């Protein structure tokens, strides 16, 4: 639960973008945040989420423009519509934040995550793991006589599904990168502007 549980205020309804419908249903949103790549910027973003009690389902960050010193932070967060609006507004207040894009509402987007899964076992289970990996287009990046490390890329749900299948087959360790996301089509969130 977040700290800003807000009860219904006005009874009036409206259609402008600053006017969220005050629903109590939580939604997952994927936000792309373009920031100056400077010391402390990630701490500011994370501090905002922890300090105000917002959820982080996944967070990834890396420099995307070396000459422009820009990084892109991709955050998957959950909240009621007004909390999501607050999160975006609060992110927008951070000085090194250039832009905040809500990929969930701004049109179709692709989301991908990479995961590494270590599956240990022998005999039939080992064969079955390999067969399922093939179906999921996971590749083997390390193998010993009694283990594999699979690499899989895809939407988070696909990785969840693959992990679920691997669990009874000897999944002993997993690392996930978190979500990277881009809007579909030729429009781009240009640096800076």
């Amino acid at each position, binding site marked *: 639960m977040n700290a*800003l549980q*807000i*009860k*219904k*205020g*006005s*009874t*009036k309804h*409206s259609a*402008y973008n*600053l*006017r*969220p419908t*005050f629903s109590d249903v939580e939604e997952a949103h994927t936000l792309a945040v373009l920031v*100056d790549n400077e*010391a*402390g910027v990630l*701490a*500011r973003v994370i*501090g905002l989420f922890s*300090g105000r009690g917002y959820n982080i389902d996944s967070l990834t960050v890396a420099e995307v423009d070396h000459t422009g010193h820009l990084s892109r932070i991709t955050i998957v967060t959950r909240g009621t519509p*007004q909390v999501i*609006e*607050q999160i975006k*507004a*609060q992110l*927008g*207040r*951070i*000085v*090194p934040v*250039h832009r905040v894009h809500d990929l969930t509402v701004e049109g179709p987007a692709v989301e991908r995550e990479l995961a590494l899964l270590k599956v240990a076992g022998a005999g039939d289970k080992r064969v079955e793991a390999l067969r399922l990996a093939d179906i999921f287009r996971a590749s083997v990046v390390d193998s010993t006589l009694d283990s594999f490390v699979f690499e899989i890329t895809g939407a988070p749900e696909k990785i969840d599904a693959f992990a679920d299948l691997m669990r009874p087959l000897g999944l002993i360790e997993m690392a996930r990168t978190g979500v990277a996301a881009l809007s579909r089509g030729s429009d781009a969130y240009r640096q800076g502007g």
Partner: protein
Amino acid sequence: MARQMTGARMVVQALKDQGVDTVFGYPGGAVLPIYDEIFQQNDIQHILVRHEQGAVHAAEGYARSTGKPGVVLVTSGPGATNAVTGLADALLDSIPIVVLTGQVPTFLIGTDGFQEADTVGITRPCTKHNWLVKETDRLPGILHEAFHVATAGRPGPVLVDIPKDVQFATGTYTAPVKGGSKRYQPQVKGDMTEINELVEALESAKKPIFYTGGGVINSGGAASQLLRELVEATGAPITSTLMGLGAYPGTGKNWLGMLGMHGLYEANMAMHDCDLLIAVGARFDDRITGRTDAFSPHSVKAHIDIDPSSINKVIRVDIPIVGDVAHVLEDMLKVWKSRGRKMNREALTKWWAQIDKWRAVDCLQFRNSDKIIKPQHALQRLEALTKDRDRYITTEVGQHQMWAAQYLTFDEPKRWMTSGGLGTMGYGFPASIGVQMAHRDALVINVAGEASWMMNMQELGTAMQFRLPVKQFILNNERLGMVRQWQQLLHGERYSSSWSESLPDFVKLAEAFGAKGIQCSDPADLDDAIMEMVNHDGPVVFDCLVEKHENCFPMIPSGEPHNKMLLGDAAATDAIQGAGAALV
């Protein structure tokens, strides 16, 4: 023009280029090079406080009474941590201050060096932005950006952490660029579609009200002027938060008084019953709204604010307008005039008739006494005897603060400095010092409680050293009065640690610093004693012994809506029940 100089000299140069005349601070190992530069010039005066918290509050007082950013200089480690309360205070009240901290040399950072603290880490959540400067060449740009960020958009505190080796090293100084840093340019013009919609709503409103806050004052003198014009021309009533007092004159005819938990009955009732609520630079704080699901239930709500995150944060609004108050009010007035200055005058007359009925309740009445000084009476006398002077008021936090807001009148902005958002006891005394520094000839009074005042009373040394004739008007109830009131109303009259025990003799205390002390306990002596304080050319500690058990009313109990106000003592006991008791 680029010039070579040390980092320490750059600091002083940048302050001069930013128009700074006063710095509040306290030296230490990690800022000695900067202090050395301050010593060698005369343009900037350094005010040596007695505790770094005092420096930040003084800078806040300076900033709030001038509209210019306040500047603080403190050392690393404990110097920086002592400044934290002031930063948090300035953040919640949107006060522009620039705090410069020394830091251990860059090569010691991370080694737990002597007086090392992760200053940018500690202050990140209580500044608008902060910087750790690792290269001397970057220092001037960062300092100029710091002033820009502190003052642009919604103002706030910023901090620049400067390691000692960066202060010693030589680099290239660059002057400020016009318009400030490119990367931080908040939107100041409001959306015209929304403004039009608001004007339309205003024209047809039957029961409109302006609800204004500190944002009007922060926006500058033009905002207050435009607000006055708009209110007078439309004839709508206006109320304000604690932070916004003075933007519209307290003697103005449309003034309903402050709203909120200890606001006036007529203001809160009007907020509850209005059909158009126009929030201007106010942020629907929980001290204002009371129970949010019952807050102003029948109104269309418009919100003018420069900070998009303030809009729809607590209360959902129908007409959101992101922009600077002055810009938006100007456009609003233009549109309203060009559309023929329409208002629903007939309905407005009825609305005022209703408001006058609420006013007739006279919610600020209290039972006076000729034996003991009632705190409300003390403030009424202070008001009567000082209102015509060039007067600035600061306060501490507690009952006295609320009474000051209720019983003193502010006709101009920037005359009232109080810790609203954070509610910081210990704010008022150093703030009064900052105000007096900016207005050497004005009458500066800190309305204090004895407990709050003791939290930063060491600043009497500062007031004496710099000949700042600040008046400390202490309403001494020998209680943490506000805490005692809540314990009475909420905790079965179990007065856990709310006595002010072992109080000093305030007169002797003043005298120990070389200041003047006055004590007054008899209502008959009060006027003379106040005049003695006012006329004394120097700092005065006024120990006003008041009724110990007076409660502050009116009051909206926690968890209740505006129309459930308590007006007097009789109604109050056991008034806060159930879930409300969990609220602060």
